[in-house]
């Protein structure tokens, strides 16, 4: 290179830079810079016109000062003047200054654009390139407005020089990224695609990037690029390494272009044309084969370039997700890299395998590397590599290896870097819940989490374990025993105290029979932690204590003593004081019956998406941390029709059939435990399962005041609201509404935003056959939630209308219609709803339901309101089904078969054989049968995999006994359902309802 090129005579600049470098301190540097700025300012303001050289020199100095990190507020005009200089070097510095220091001063922009326009039309390729580089570097809207039409013309013009074409392509790419609306598609698009065939590989390289960006937004317009890209790629991968001359990089043929072409192909599904598809498969195979060949050079550049192409090819294979052999080969290749001595390759292999794990074709192949990945977790010295290993373990987890993976993650957690602990905690919590066959393992795992990394266990995690324990009665005793044991540790984390307090308060009775965990011992254990805890935890413990008074009358005195002590009754914290006062008073004045009702066990939580998964998603950004199994299903349901992968996946998720979503989401099956219905629960206030937050968080003053010390027990009753301690008093309807919002918040199958509000009347209907609460309907304006309870032939349904907009709904009416003959079979009385629903508010309507005789049709809820002056009509089928009027009947085996025989008449039996629609999980099936309303009878059927249930349908006029038998055949993925009842219409209807659920 000629020596002259290094310095082009700006001696002043070199001197200035040396001066700055010689400054001993920051102060000295600032002083020197200020001196220079003053000098330049005076030169620019001076009377004497500066020659081009001086202007260039000073502008360059200003640029240097700016790049050092100082603010520059003048000199722009001089730089703009340089643009129109006919000396290349001055023009070049002017453009550099403009590119780095864009100023939105509109006068200047106009001048700059003028200069660019001149250079673009100069037909001098060097000047044109400078102008195009400037547009690409600045990329502002003003420039897009001025040049979005001109640049495509230059790009496709026949006489444009190659180097100008390259700049124009990437310039256009930048404009398209920043202002896509200003770049018009047009006749040029077809010609751009043909640049893939250009002779000059530099032009192809630049054009491929542009086409990829455009194809992501308008895939249809650029479809023809697929065959051209495959052809080009094929020529590259089969070329001898010398064919491409200077585009060969360390013996790898055009690695940048190869990567870009493979990237472009990822905008499309596998080619439909068999020939093109075959050619592409050949290319991919060749790339995989080359990975096995001995390296042509020992230089890291050689292996990096080669592997860059390989990884991009693997990305394409994963994107297509259609060729099992390629997927498995890719997986094996990555498996080799997992043990490579280059850290970079190990990192990338772990990362890439994460996506392979979500393909059903390669999931099993990925799993074979589990030991290597676990080993990486233990031995990698770089935290970013270990992080990838955690991600991969999470992605490869399924039922078969969940215990091993969770155990490994837990043991890694003990020494994990603080920066990733919270994420690991969330992942462990999700996997433990999702793959728990045995819920005792789940409880153990979460308690271990709290023990090992208590500080990183967020509220969502411990709320979740409580929700699960409350909803599953088979694990409650074990949970009580385990927390009791865990609390024995002299130092335990406050989160453990919270879980322990809650669980013992609810289920301490289940272990109280053991003298080692007698009520008093339990209480003393909890209370020994009390003083070390924060106020919210103490508040929770006080609630646990009052629950103890109900569970264990024998410790009432001890607990009252504690509540009465000055440290409680006169506690400086108003919440603790209030709880102590109220609980003490309640325990003194309420009879055992009332206490039992008020302090009744928490009802099961409505099913909802795991709040933990939501949190992980929030933490990592949507789409990046999909629920592993969800993702697997989605990918295969969605084989590459997608061009914009992330957004279609999100849509698929949102609009997936809700029941499937429910089964896959780590949500517990609905369990409507047959609970003794106390007379109080039919009082006007709904039995509201409150969110856990309400239990843990301070009671609001209005809620607290409801338990006024002075009010006698009879008042509590006559208020009609004391059904449980946890229900919200009617005096605070607002609070009640907001809590309900929370209950509904996560589990609703929200329609994708932007989708037209199609009113499908019964899309969620069948979801409610086996459960009573949830979201019935949702569109962009309105969400309708239901809570219902039934007793014998009566029912009550609470309908919640949530206004999702920020404006009012006017003239709101909601009425129930029983069509045709239904009105003689079913009485539904709707209380009139408020005619106005404020923006963001929720309106509650109560329906009283009476079943007169058995029925088939469902009542329809008609809603009308005005939103923004437009009348909205929505009709929804109300999920009032015959099985809601079931009362479960427990009976022994002998009894059952005797009755089964009695109902042997042909018209009494209805049988249906059907294919399983969902996975055949026996726990889920059990939960559904219980949710259906019958008693699930264990040990009745000689075949343990069959399910048998019994119940009585109550109508006003009669009662109909009903026996159910469900025989799964896992091999054939089929079920046989048999129903016998004393009335044929009932048998038929129940069979129709239930057979839809599996």
């Amino acid at each position, binding site marked *: 290179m000629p020596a002259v090129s290094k310095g082009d005579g700006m001696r002043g600049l070199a001197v200035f830079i040396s001066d700055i470098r010689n400054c001993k301190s920051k102060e000295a540097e600032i002083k020197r810079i200020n001196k220079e700025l003053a000098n330049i300012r005076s030169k620019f303001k001076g009377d004497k016109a500066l020659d081009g050289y001086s202007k260039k020199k000073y502008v360059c100095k200003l640029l240097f000062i700016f790049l050092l*990190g100082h603010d520059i507020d003048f000199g722009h005009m001089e730089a703009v003047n340089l643009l129109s200089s006919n000396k290349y070097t001055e023009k070049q510095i002017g453009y550099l200054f403009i590119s780095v220091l864009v100023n939105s001063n509109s006068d200047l922009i106009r001048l700059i654009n003028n200069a660019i326009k001149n250079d673009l039309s100069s037909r001098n390729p060097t000047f044109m390139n400078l102008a195009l580089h400037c547009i690409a570097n600045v*990329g502002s809207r003003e420039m897009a407005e001025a040049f979005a039409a001109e640049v495509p013309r230059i790009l496709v013009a026949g006489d444009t020089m190659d180097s100008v074409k390259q700049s124009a392509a990437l310039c256009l790419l930048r404009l398209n990224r920043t202002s896509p609306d200003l770049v018009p598609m047009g006749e040029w698009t077809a010609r751009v695609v043909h640049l893939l065939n250009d002779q000059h590989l530099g032009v192809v390289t630049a054009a491929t990037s542009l086409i990829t960006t455009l194809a992501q937004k308008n895939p249809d317009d650029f479809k023809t690029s697929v065959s051209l890209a495959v052809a080009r790629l094929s020529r590259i991968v089969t070329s001898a390494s010398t064919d491409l001359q200077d585009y060969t990089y360390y013996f790898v043929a055009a690695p940048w272009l190869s990567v870009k072409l493979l990237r472009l192909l990822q905008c499309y599904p596998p080619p439909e044309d068999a020939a093109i598809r075959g050619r592409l498969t050949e290319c991919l195979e060749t790339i995989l084969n080359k990975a096995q060949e001995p390296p042509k050079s020992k230089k890291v550049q050689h292996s990096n370039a080669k592997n860059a192409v390989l990884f991009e090819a693997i990305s394409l294979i994963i994107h297509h997700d259609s060729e099992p052999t390629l997927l498995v080969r890719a997986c094996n290749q990555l498996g080799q890299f997992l043990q490579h001595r280059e850290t970079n390759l190990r990192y990338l292999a772990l990362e890439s395998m994460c996506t392979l794990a979500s393909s059903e074709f390669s999931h099993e192949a990925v799993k074979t590397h589990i030991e290597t990945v676990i080993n990486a977790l233990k031995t990698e010295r770089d935290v970013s*590599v270990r992080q990838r290993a955690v991600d991969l373990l999470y992605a490869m987890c399924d039922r078969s290896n969940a215990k091993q993976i969770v155990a490994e993650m837990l043991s890694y957690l003990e020494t994990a870097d603080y920066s990733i602990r919270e994420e690991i905690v969330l992942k462990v919590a999700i996997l433990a819940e999702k793959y728990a066959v045995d819920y005792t393992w789940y409880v153990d795992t979460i308690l271990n989490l709290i023990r090992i990394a208590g500080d990183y266990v967020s509220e969502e995690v411990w709320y979740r374990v409580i929700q699960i324990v409350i909803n599953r009665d088979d694990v409650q005793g074990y949970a009580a025993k385990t927390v009791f044991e865990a609390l024995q540790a002299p130092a335990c984390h406050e989160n453990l105290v919270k879980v322990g307090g809650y669980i013992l308060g609810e289920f301490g009775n289940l272990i109280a029979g053991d003298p080692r965990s007698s009520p008093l011992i339990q209480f003393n254990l909890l209370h020994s932690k009390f003083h070390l805890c924060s106020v919210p935890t103490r508040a929770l413990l006080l609630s646990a204590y009052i629950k103890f008074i109900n569970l264990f009358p024998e410790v009432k005195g001890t607990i009252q003593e504690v509540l009465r002590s000055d440290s409680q009754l006169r506690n400086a914290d108003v919440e603790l004081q209030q709880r102590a006062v109220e609980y003490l008073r309640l325990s003194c004045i309420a009879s055992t019956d009332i206490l039992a009702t008020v302090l009744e066990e928490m009802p099961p939580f409505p099913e909802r998406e795991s709040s933990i998964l939501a949190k992980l998603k929030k933490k990592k950004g949507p789409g990046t941390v999909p629920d592993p199994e969800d993702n697997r299903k989605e990918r295969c349901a969605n084989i590459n029709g997608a061009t914009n992968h992330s957004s279609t996946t999100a849509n698929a998720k949102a609009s997936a059939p809700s029941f499937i979503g429910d089964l896959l989401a780590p949500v517990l099956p609905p369990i409507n435990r047959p609970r003794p219905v106390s007379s109080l629960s039919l009082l006007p206030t709904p039995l509201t399962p409150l969110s856990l937050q309400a239990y843990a968080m301070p009671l609001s003053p209005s809620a607290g005041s409801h338990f006024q010390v002075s009010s006698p027990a009879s008042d509590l009753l006559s208020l009609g609201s004391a059904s449980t301690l946890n229900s919200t008093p009617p005096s605070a309807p607002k609070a009640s509404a907001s809590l309900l919002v929370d209950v509904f918040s996560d589990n609703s199958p929200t329609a994708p935003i932007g989708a037209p509000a199609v009113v499908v009347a019964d899309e969620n209907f069948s979801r409610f056959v086996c459960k009573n609460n949830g979201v019935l309907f949702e569109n962009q304006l309105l969400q309708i939630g239901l809570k219902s309870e039934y007793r014998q032939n009566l029912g009550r349904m609470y309908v919640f209308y949530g206004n999702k907009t920020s404006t009012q709904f006017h003239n709101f009416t909601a009425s129930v219609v029983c069509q045709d003959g239904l009105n003689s079979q079913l009485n539904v009385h709707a209380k009139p709803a408020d005619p106005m629903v404020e923006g963001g508010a929720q309106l509650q309507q109560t329906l009283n339901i009476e079943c007169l005789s058995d029925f088939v049709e469902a009542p329809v809820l008609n809603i009308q309101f005005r939103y923004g002056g437009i009348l909205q009509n929505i009709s929804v089928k109300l999920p009032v089904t015959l099985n809601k009027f079931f009362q479960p009947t427990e009976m022994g085996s002998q009894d059952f078969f005797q009755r089964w025989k009695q109902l042997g008449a042909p018209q009494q039996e209805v049988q249906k054989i059907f294919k399983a629609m969902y996975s055949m999980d026996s726990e889920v099936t059990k939960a559904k049968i219980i949710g259906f309303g019958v008693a699930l009878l264990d040990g009745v059927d000689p075949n343990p995999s069959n399910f048998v249930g019994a119940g009585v349908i109550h109508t006003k006029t009669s009662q109909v006994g009903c026996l159910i038998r469900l025989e799964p055949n896992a091999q054939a993925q089929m079920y046989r359902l048999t129903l016998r009842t004393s009335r044929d219409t009932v048998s038929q209807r129940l069979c129709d309802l239930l057979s839809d659920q599996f």
Partner: protein
Amino acid sequence: MQFMLLFSRQGKLRLQKWYVPLSDKEKKKITRELVQTVLARKPKMCSFLEWRDLKIVYKRYASLYFCCAIEDQDNELITLEIIHRYVELLDKYFGSVCELDIIFNFEKAYFILDEFLLGGEAQETSKKNVLKAIEQADLLQEVCCSLPSS
């Protein structure tokens, strides 16, 4: 690619190229954060790391760190070789380049980068072609420089 930064072992920024519109304040914040993060890493660690929602690819050459921020779908290894090719270009142009060359001829470093990368994408990967373009510009420069004296 969203941006490229060159900084010294002492944390002094030597070159910055932004391919996404950001405010000066934001740029300074990102630079500070990244310089700190990258300098804290040990020599044998891998060249990639997750940072915010971007992937950082970096490599050290003598006293200079070259650091690129790429998006999720972008290829890490090819980015590493983009860095290497840029170093080769600088090396060829300056004749065994050192940090001082980039300090004193910072404008050249920018010009070479613009010939090689534009809008964050590789424009011309042939070393010969890039250097040819720069040479031609230098020739023009010489003509211009000699004009005032003549």
